[in-house]
């Protein structure tokens, strides 16, 4: 479903502050696969997601989604195939708009916006059904402005928005990192449930080792712009934080404590 071929990205090439963010990334995700990308600061995680989503153009290499080469497709057009949730809890929603209006904007992804009410044709019912599985009671508060929600509630709404319209790929950029541990747990559980229910191909970046080990079918460890280690299937299920630390001598406290 997602195919990255020999992706390279260097910031400020030829300048004193030149930084190779992605040295060479090859990655293939099957349809419905849930991959977790982990790595310390500067490993290239965010750059990788931005290249996938189209916010950054790679210096070399190709991005294919569902077999189509989208390397040159701008981010706003690529959003037809990609649902995204960011770390910043206010990044994915429009604050002055209500929950239902935010969902309507997400539901309109990938088609032209008409001069007609977004709530026609039972849209509210669909929104309620999409929000109900979160178990937060948001389905009863469709007219509430998003700015009145807590960070966790906003991330939950963002997740529902990202999955509206059945995207080919779900991109999660440390979407629970800014939440307190309990809320993060709730949002993460909702995320895993939603992914399993919809069988959406997912690329999730995280700082959190425990999360990376607990979630997903594949673990990809990035280091200095390269894939350092990959585990799937039984190998992935058998991973422990201790084993990874031992094997790679990870010195970044953030990875362990996050």
């Amino acid at each position, binding site marked *: 479903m997602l195919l990255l071929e020999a992706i390279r990205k260097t910031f400020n090439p030829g300048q004193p502050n030149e930084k190779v963010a992605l040295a060479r990334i090859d990655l293939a995700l099957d349809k419905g696969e849930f991959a977790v990308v982990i790595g310390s600061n500067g490993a290239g995680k965010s750059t990788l997601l931005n290249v996938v989503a189209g916010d950054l153009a790679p210096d070399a290499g190709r991005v294919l989604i569902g077999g189509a080469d989208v390397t040159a497709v701008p981010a706003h057009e690529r959003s*037809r195939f990609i649902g995204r949730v960011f770390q910043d809890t206010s990044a*994915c929603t*429009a604050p002055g*708009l209500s929950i239902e209006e935010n969902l309507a*904007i997400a539901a309109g992804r990938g088609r032209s916006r008409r001069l007609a*009410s977004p709530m026609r044709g039972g849209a509210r019912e669909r929104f309620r059904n999409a929000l109900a599985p979160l178990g937060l009671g948001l389905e009863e508060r469709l007219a509430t402005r998003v700015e009145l929600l807590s960070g966790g509630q906003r991330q939950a709404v963002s997740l529902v928005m990202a999955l509206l319209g059945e995207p080919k790929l779900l991109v999660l950029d440390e979407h629970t990192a800014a939440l307190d541990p309990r809320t993060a747990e709730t949002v993460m559980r909702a995320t895993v449930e939603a992914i399993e229910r919809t069988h959406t191909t997912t690329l999730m970046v995280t700082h959190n080792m425990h999360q990376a080990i607990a979630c997903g079918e594949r673990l990809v460890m990035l280091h200095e712009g390269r894939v350092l280690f990959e585990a799937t299937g039984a190998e992935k299920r058998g991973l422990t934080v201790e084993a990874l630390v031992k094997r790679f001598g990870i010195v970044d406290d953030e990875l362990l404590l996050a």
Partner: protein
Amino acid sequence: MAEFFAAFWNLLPVSLGHGLLHAFVALGIMIPFRLLNFPDLTSEGAFPLGGCVCAALIAAAVHPLAAMLVALVAGFGAGCVTAGIHLRLRINTLLAGILVVTMLWSVNLRVMGKSNIPLFSLPNAFDQAWSGFTASHGAQITFWVALSAALVLAARWFLRTEAGLVVRAVGANDTMARANGVNVARVTLLGVGTANAFSAFAGASLAQIQGYADVAMGFGMLINGLAALIIGEAITGRDSVLRQILAPFVGALVYYLVVALGLAAGVHPSDLKLVTGLFVLGTLGLPAFRRAMVREPRLRA
């Protein structure tokens, strides 16, 4: 006192007409500032552009309605240029606006060929559609109230459609809009363009109603409109789409009534810009002033 009321009573019809007409400038300021989060100064140049283009075309014997339409398109274009400068060259929106306003001064002079075109003896769109319009304050007030009401209702409807939601999303959070497939650059271009078309419309209307266009007719227009918008928002609030759209109309009306009160009370017309500027400064500075007042006791405690 009787003198004051008599003066105010005499000024009232003119002020109402002026207020309603200038509401379109306030609307042209509200759209970029509030809906698109794109602080835009272009209206200061789009307003005279509308007046000058319309006057030059009428003087060249073009049908007044067609002249107004061209003026509207010119205002739209001016807004697009400002938005384009910001989007393409990443120049601050305010600076982009000042650049365009400055350049429009020369454009307006070039369009008219001189600094002032009188239209008294020429046909105008308003009198053609409604005989005696420019001579009757009642007709003007009726027309502007009806047009404003229609526009407020249309805007309220539009901003709740799928297309309108996208406009509001661009202003509220452009990252979110982009992530949801919105072409932010296109919405910004169209939005700022439309806003300045409203300002140009006001300029073209004023030129025909007052009977002349002058290259300096836009001077201070932005601050007037901003003052009107601030007053309007203080009255209507910004809690709903309808309130936000009503604000420029209510505000412009109140602003020009307050100006009439000031004039009736003997404020010299040439001092008005200073007074208006101080008012805008005071309103915008009020939050900082309040914070300073609150902080002081805490420091002593």
